């Protein structure tokens, strides 16, 4: 910790520390249930190599729900505003240049959002905080990004899980997306990776991952850093993609690519027909009379 940061920490500590372990009564809460699924929205990426495939029509998509072909109500491309939840790792390993590059990259992304897009910011190291609630105003986001500091261990599992719970109750005409940035494996969560994957299946949020993987790093406690298998599964389950950064200097470009990819996705909607209403639904999306690699959520959970 440098002298300036040290002074800040001391001032912070001496300004505010009241540590309390308290017992408070929490209100008894009754369970409430969400209405069952009436309309299913499938966020689909169609790529030809590294190039998004544009110009596809409803008749180019074949969608099955638990094996039953469905009739699409609508297909839209690049017209639906984003509802973006940015979830950023600010653990100690990001301190210094890496954090500066992350902030720069995120500023670039925020400034590239369209006026109708909504964005929120969650940060995590050991504690998890919703720094900015969903807003169309860019100033609070820029201000929060500017003030980021990096310290502590990594609660990536708990952070993703809690971020998934913050998805819009009614997304309306928007596309809920969780964009995760992390540089390492979990070191301090309660939840395990399988918990998070299960929650991702149920959330309906599109999940994109940008992972910083640098070969020369050794993680905490002698654990070698390699791409996280969990983060790959997370992106697959969330119907999104994962990008690797070999250096934090690449982050600006990668976040730009992630945003472009989001703009080039199709949003398919259909009213499920011929399938049971509750439980897990396998969804498969294929193309007909068109070419491209399709990426979409593998299904959804209806209750």
């Amino acid at each position, binding site marked *: *910790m440098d*002298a300036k*940061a*040290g*002074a800040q*920490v*001391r001032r*912070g*500590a*001496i*300004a*505010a*520390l*009241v*540590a*309390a*372990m*308290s*017992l*408070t*009564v*929490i209100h008894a*809460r009754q*369970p*409430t*249930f*969400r209405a069952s699924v009436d309309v299913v929205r499938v966020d689909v990426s169609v790529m030809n190599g590294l190039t998004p495939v544009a110009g596809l029509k409803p008749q180019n998509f074949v969608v099955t729900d638990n094996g039953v072909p469905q009739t699409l109500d609508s297909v839209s491309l690049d017209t639906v505003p984003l509802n973006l939840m940015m979830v950023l790792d600010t653990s*100690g390993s990001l301190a210094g240049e890496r954090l500066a590059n992350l902030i720069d990259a995120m500023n670039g992304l925020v400034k590239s959002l369209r006026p109708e897009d909504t964005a929120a910011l969650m940060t995590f190291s*050991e*504690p*998890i*905080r*919703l720094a900015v609630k969903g807003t169309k105003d860019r100033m609070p986001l820029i201000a929060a990004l500017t003030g980021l500091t990096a*310290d*502590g*261990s990594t*609660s990536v599992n*708990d952070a993703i*899980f*809690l971020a998934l*719970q*913050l998805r819009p109750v009614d997304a309306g005409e928007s596309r809920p997306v969780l964009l995760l940035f992390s540089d390492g*494996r*979990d*070191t*301090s*969560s*309660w*939840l*395990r990776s*399988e*918990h998070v994957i299960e*929650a991702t299946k*149920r959330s309906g949020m599109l999940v994109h991952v940008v992972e910083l993987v640098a070969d020369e790093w050794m993680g905490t*406690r002698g654990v070698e850093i*390699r791409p996280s*298998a*969990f983060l*790959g599964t997370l992106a697959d389950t969330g119907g999104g993609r994962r990008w690797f950064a070999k250096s934090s200097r690449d982050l600006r470009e990668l976040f730009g690519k992630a945003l472009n990819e989001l703009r080039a996705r199709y949003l398919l909607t259909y009213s499920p027909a011929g399938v049971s209403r509750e439980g897990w639904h396998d969804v498969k999306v294929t193309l007909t009379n068109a070419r491209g690699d399709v990426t979409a959520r593998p299904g959804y959970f209806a*209750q």
Partner: protein
Amino acid sequence: MMAIRTAAIVAVSVSTLLAQPDRSATEIYRAAVAEYLKSGDAARAARPLAALGPEQLEPAVKAILSRADPRELEGAADLHLEIGIAVAGLSVSGGAAYFDQGSRLVNAIMPPPAIRKGVSALRLEQMTLISSTWHRVAASTLLSINDVARARSLMQRALPLVPKSAEILTLLGTASEIDAGVLDPDNWDSVTGKTHAGFERARRLLAAEQSYKAALESDPTYPLALIRLGRVQFLHDNIKAARESLERGAALAREPRHQFLAAMFMGALQESQNDLAGANHSYERALYIAPQSQHAVAAVVFVDLMLGWINRAEEVGRAYTSAKLDDAWWLHKTGAFDVEGLLWLRQHLRQ
């Protein structure tokens, strides 16, 4: 509602600093220690120290060490501990420097072996208790923020004084358990990676189990060792033994944080057995004890989700992530922080 205040250090007073332009760091520090000994108010005592980092305090620490006044040493060590705890929640590395200096101060309370014969057995026992408790609290602070390496270093300083301390042995086990938690074999794509992670995880869990069993040999009724042993047995898929250990530990637990951990670990066990209602009950109990625990929130929300209580899960998740971060958030998170030890040190200083 019951609240235990563990540290309260208030805003830097510019006027205080301006009023003392010519005082050396040593004078300011000694005055702060005297104030702490007199009032027991860490917040008030530490106020003039806001502008001084550990490096500026070093000459003052040396001065107090050379004076070798046991009461001043104890007051200075405890003040360092309070500041270290306060800073640790804001900066992992920040608190460590205060703990290093505090450790030197509290170690100096013990007379050198050559002159210990002249000290009464009762006094020696008191000194040992002060030093070992001090190191226990500092180590538990670092474990609460997952700084395992520094925590181990502090524990190793206390262990020679009290080699059979159930508390210290349990902390050593907790360090191994935290280290094991980092290694999830499923997080590796390669077979080599999975094998290595699985082997290392098992080795560290075994070390934790041995430490807890050693603690229980020293004190068979120490609830924290029983509860933590139950956790490790659960991680080893020894469900029956785990349940027994957790139930025995919970029955013996009187401290809120021990009850909290028993509830969390029992919840995990119940969840693994698909007893979601039981898990929900246990996690809710943990959340009741420590409403700000991030772990308890995550656990409750997940089980709510599995039970189909989606709106409720979202409500709890939103409330937690949107609330202002308590400066002491980390004290509630893992249940590792030794609040009882800190209270004992404070009480001893008052006597």
